[in-house]
């Protein structure tokens, strides 16, 4: 079995927000599948855990949920980004970019092997 990435705390929430932002309204299965596809199946994700993230985001008012009908006529719960969810996503992306930039710098320094 391939080694899969263990998700850091809070990253799943960001992934969900980003997915919804790109895909628009979507149900839980769709979101989970999309994240798996994008990550090239490298994410260690029990699909079931996505529902905890969804209800958490919903309670924070970042997404809305509503039962509706899917393409192939199935009743499913659909999630959509709210206004404050979109704002939060912008903030989170900015924050995440800064963290990854910083980590990149720090790791690059170590690769140089120079001063310690």
């Amino acid at each position: 079995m391939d080694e899969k990435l263990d998700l850091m705390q809070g990253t799943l929430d960001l992934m969900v927000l980003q997915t919804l932002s790109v895909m628009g309204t979507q149900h839980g299965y769709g979101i989970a599948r999309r994240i798996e596809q994008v990550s090239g199946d490298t994410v260690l994700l029990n699909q079931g855990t996505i529902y905890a993230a969804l209800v958490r985001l919903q309670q924070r008012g970042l997404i809305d949920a509503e039962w509706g009908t899917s393409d192939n006529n199935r009743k499913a719960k659909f999630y959509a980004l709210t206004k404050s969810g979109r704002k939060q996503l912008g903030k989170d992306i900015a924050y995440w970019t800064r963290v990854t930039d910083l980590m990149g710098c720090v790791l690059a320094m170590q690769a140089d092997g120079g001063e310690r």
Partner: protein
Amino acid sequence: MNASRKGWIRQSLLRMAAFIRRRPLDQDLNDEMAVHLEMAIEENLKRGLNPEDARRQALIRFGNVGQAREYHRAARGLPGMDVLMQDLSYALRTLRREISFTLVAVLILGLGIGANVAVFSVVNTLLLRPLPFPNSKQLVRIHQEAPKGGESSMTYSVDATQAFQNRTRAFDEVTGYFAFSGPDNVKLMGNGQPEPITALSVAGNFFPTLGVEPILGRQFSAEECLKNSRPVALLSHDFWKRKYASDPALIGQAIKLDGIPTTVIGILPETFDFGSVFSPGARVDVYQPAIFANMEDWGNTMALVGRLKPGVSLPQAQAEANTIFPELFFNSKHPEYGHGYTANLYDLKDYVSGKLRESLLLLWCGVGMILLIVCVNLSNLLLARAATRRKEFAIRNALGAGRGRLIRQLLTESLILAVIGALVGLGMAYAAITYLAHQSSISLPLMSSIRLDREALGWTVLVTVLTGLLVGVLPAFKVSGKSLHASLKDSGPGTSEGRSHNRLRGALVITEIALACLLLVGAGLLLRSFLHVLDVDLGFQPSQSAAISVDYDDGGNVVKRGVILQSILARVEQIPGVETAGITDNLPMSINRSWGIQAKGHSYRKGELADTFVYLVTPGYLNAIGMHLVKGRDIQWQDTDKKQAVVIINETVARALWPGQDPIGQIAEAGGSDAQVIGVVADVHETNAETQAGWQMYLSQTAPQYGPVGADLVIRTKLPPTSLGSAVMQVLRQMNPAQPATEFRPIQQLVDHATSPRRFFAILGGIFAALGLILASLGIYGVISYSVTQQTKEIGIRMALGATAGGVQLGVIAKTLRLALVGIAVGTIASLLLSREVASQLFGTSPNDPETFVGMILLLGAVALVAGYVPARRASRIDPMIALRNN
């Protein structure tokens, strides 16, 4: 910041809503997850998997459904509460399953917590809570420094009262009440027979000073306190309710007091109880304004209370009093009577209950010890139970419950026990408090206002939580700390278990016994003191005499008075069953007054003379009350010489005034008149049984020189006094149709009233000690019995190998005694160290009283022996065959 707080509140509300709407939300999630799986299966089918694989793959990718649900719940609701609810329902299930254990535990806890709540209510009412008056911290009791001499030497004349009122700058108001009113001192005339009620004269500003407002009507006006004013009265709430069915129309109407129409101007609030603050156990029905102008020649009659100006401290007021009071005249119309009062100021609250402080704190400690014993006892029970539950915990641990979860589980159980126990205890406390609040025979202040209030409930919560934690913490750590997996492999009950476990339980039992020992010794000392008090020779014999107050009308003519009293006594003595009868104006251990006595023609230095309790009595009184005439003769009806009265003195006076001489025949100045000493009586404890007798003298009630303040008929009889009541009342009615219908009061009742605080504390101490003893013996029994059960197999083997039943029995008893002896040793040492603390509460008993110590130790040892004997007997009856075949 604000927005984030708003968000936080919003989320908290949502979480709470989610916690409550758990079921529909779970259903919603279930639906959602079902759709999820359907979609996944469909996609897998499209990818060409067969239906079985498609389903399997979908389930694998989804992961654990139960876990997803738990995460969902944790994310949306209150995860802590979820766990708590689980713990609670699990604990309740467990407790229900072991119902007999639960009942015992709840009962023990109920007793411990109930006793604590009840005692707290008493302590709170008497010590902690302020007096039931607004700004009661400003209220001050003022009285003279006079250790002896009773009320007369603590009170002030009306002239001195008014002079101080005018001169003081420290006090906003100074007020007072007439200190010499007896119970049933006024006749209420209405339809039918006159009814005796209790009236009290108070200064016009009495109620405004205390801050007591009538609930109906108004206060006394200034005019109503003047001479020849229209008589008015304020009624106590209780009297108004009892006699007039709370009729508001009574205001403005006249009631007849001693034949005088008196207008009711107001009703006092229910919360005002004069007796509970100023005179424990007394009941007052009506309050009348004290007409100072009529009281100028009455001497010291006013008991003073003042309200300090805001910002004035007690020492400042005391300093002022120290300069003013010595300058005050006894009687401003007669400066030749002299001047010079003293004044001691006390915070009213301290004055009322300060004396009880130590007793109450002691009681509080005692009841705290009971609770400690309860905790130790229950801790022990839980420990035993926890040991048998080790497998259960091991299984739960194996299924994923962490150590913290198991500890929390056990603490939840002990807290639930404590809460149920507290509910039971509250019920018991309520009953006890209600009972106490209605005991007017207990002469403790403020008792009538004891109730279960908010503070007591707060205390209950505190005690309950503490108890729950204290009880649970030891077993919880002990159990969860064990290597739980080893328990799974354990061979089961019947073999000895770890030593440390047994040692811990032994230590707990020793603690219990030591605490019980401490309680027993303390209670024993109190009880012994009480017995000593009962044994005191009071100087009179209360047991077979009874008193009834007599109303007569002599029109102020002393000769007529003599005729009336003589014929009353002659007729009463003819009633079958009455041995002797006599009349006095004041009874011992009730109201008293004091005058002065000295040898005539002798001059004394300051401090040589003492205020002398004075009793105006008829011939026969000394016999009727059972006093002991040491020398000389009783008063006779003929002792009515206008120039020279007669006086009987007590031994204390005889020793002080005529040391080494025969006092009989000596001439004294008694109460301002010459009087010949005709007799000496043994000292009477005039105030209570515990203090030394003061100076006392007995004058003739029919002497023209003196004026009695009422008449109490005292009879001596072997029959129950109530059975003579109607015959005596008939005689009194014939003599005086206006004689109110009163009942005989046994003299013993006066004595009991005076000793009631000590009785109260001795009985409570005894109850607590008994409780401690029972709990400790339960503890011993529990531990020994449990260890016998644990060792059934072992004992079986030993008996199979030849140990005798007697030997086994002896072994168990020896084990019990070892525990008991260590506990008793620790307890005795602690008692010896602590008994000095109770020394001030004792009477005629040394704090190290050897008899008490030995007695209590023997008692404790005997109880321990019995508690150990029962399981020992069981152990000796173990049949080796059965013991070894089982398990």
